[in-house]
């Protein structure tokens, strides 16, 4: 009886564990199968024609890359500052705890609220209109906790004797930052950024009101009134009213390009991320 229950337990939990594997294989398979036909050199290098039914997605890819680059440049300095304050400068455990709570709360803020914030502050109050800069800043703020937390974890795992050696040499906190923490922990910054960018690349909600339009934008030359095209918004719009089979093929092709971009970034960050999670176990 007990052994039958044991087998039943293993069977049930195994089915549960198989489900996410089946789902991801299904998602990748379906999108590769239906989007693969759209992929061609022309699709990647041509601009949108006939409302997405024809032509390619060159400026969508360019726009998404511009947004990501801006987000990266915004988030890295702020995340570094946060991580150094948490990991090096703050000595009071309670204050550190509060800062950590704040990062957790920021991490949980729904992405649409970033969009609304950007709409109020940048689009309307500062009068930028739709601008790639707004989207970049918002995505940068969104990925901030991911980058900062990865850096903080790395600082935490710094071998104790490195810090003791630095203290023994009489280095101040800031000297320690440049001679020990930054060289040893920069890897955390890279992993965090990759992971953050992977999330940011697929976000639609923060940029749909603030920085991206469906058609008619190329490479921006200024900040004010300079929207970009983007991959997720392209999918979002076509998904809502696409009964044209040609647009359908291009829709799946765009989804495939976005998926490759996002999963590629995730895959690059994967070894480090699994490492962090596996370390928490102890067998």
């Amino acid at each position, binding site marked *: 009886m007990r052994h039958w229950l044991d087998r039943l337990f293993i069977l049930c939990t195994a089915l549960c564990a198989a489900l996410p594997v089946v789902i991801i294989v299904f998602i990748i398979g379906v999108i590769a199968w239906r989007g693969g036909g759209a992929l061609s050199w022309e699709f990647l290098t041509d601009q949108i024609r006939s409302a997405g039914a024809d032509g390619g997605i060159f400026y969508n890819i360019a726009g998404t890359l511009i947004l990501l680059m801006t987000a990266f440049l915004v988030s890295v300095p702020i995340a570094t500052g946060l991580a150094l304050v948490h990991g090096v400068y703050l000595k009071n455990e309670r204050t550190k705890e509060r800062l*950590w709570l704040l990062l957790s709360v920021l991490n949980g803020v729904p992405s649409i609220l970033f969009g609304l914030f950007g709409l109020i502050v940048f689009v309307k109050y500062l009068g930028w209109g739709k601008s790639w800069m707004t989207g970049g800043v918002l995505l940068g703020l969104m990925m901030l906790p991911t980058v900062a937390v990865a850096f903080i974890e790395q600082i935490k795992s710094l071998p104790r004797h490195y810090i003791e050696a630095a203290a023994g040499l009489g280095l101040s906190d800031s000297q320690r930052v440049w001679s020990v923490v930054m060289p040893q922990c920069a890897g955390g910054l890279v992993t965090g950024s990759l992971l953050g960018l992977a999330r940011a690349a697929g976000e639609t909600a923060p940029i749909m009101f603030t920085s991206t339009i469906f058609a008619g934008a190329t490479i921006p030359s200024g900040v004010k009134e300079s929207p970009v095209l983007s991959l997720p918004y392209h999918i979002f719009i076509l998904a809502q009213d696409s009964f044209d089979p040609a647009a359908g093929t291009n829709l799946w092709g765009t989804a495939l390009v976005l998926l490759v971009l996002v999963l590629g970034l995730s895959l690059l960050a994967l070894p480090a991320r699994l490492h962090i999670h596996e370390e928490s176990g102890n067998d």
Partner: protein
Amino acid sequence: MLSLRNAARHWTWTRLASFAFTLLAVAFLGLMLGLFVWQSLPAWKHAGLGYITGKTWYFRQQEFGALAMIYGTFVVSAVALLLAAPVGVGAALFTAEVLPNRWRLPVKAAVELLAGVPSVVYGLLGILFLRNWVYDGLESFDLLSGDTLLTAGILLAVMILPTVMTLSDDALRAVPATQRRAARGLGLTRAETAILVGFAQSWRGMLTALLLALGRALGETIAVFLVVGRRDNALPESFYSIPPLVEAGQTLTSKLGGSETNIAYGDPLHWAAIVGLALFLLSIVAGISWAGARLMRRKEECDAPLA
């Protein structure tokens, strides 16, 4: 010792910049909250508590009651959690307690990839597959379309599954392996060990996982937007009746993501009503994230002497 520590605290440029950037991040969160409170004030003045409890939202008649959207948000999240919790915990029990290490990594990698799929892609798959499956599967209910609260809930369940699974797996693996070996040594089966040792000590961590997953579900916008139907004022007679689940509805996020946000800006009262939804959502999700982070910290403190 004290003097040494003070000597290490000179205000250098590095230190100054670090604190300035930290302050910037803190100020951003404060500014967002302050802005939402300030901009939504007219709505609270106009409708009072009726803004939360009001059952009708007709912006042309200046009637702003958000209850139907609050209902939609919670129903969709509840469905997602009910579906994702057993599967996620079950999967974590399998990967942490049963699966040999060689197979662990591929499964974990698959889950990480699942977590990386953009919400607009989930939305697309929801539109082209899930809503047809729901429509065909529930033929006997005579659905108007496949865009229902249930569809959104199922889609959300898949989206929060990685959160539930990864955090539950972490919680299980924080239980010392020696205890498992002791249990097996006493003749307990793998299932008994998993439940009496693993689950018994990590259920608190799993609750945290569910809490954080709930926070994600409440705030998810794009995927829900595409399959929920976006029907205003879809409030059932009672909160616990089942049939409304298979009808179209509206959530806080699908409202915020819709065209009304663009229309509303010109009219102060209408705009205030929209921002009020954002404020309500922010308060709830921030509260949940805060509680989740506190729980996780407490767990770490409790575990520390054991590990």
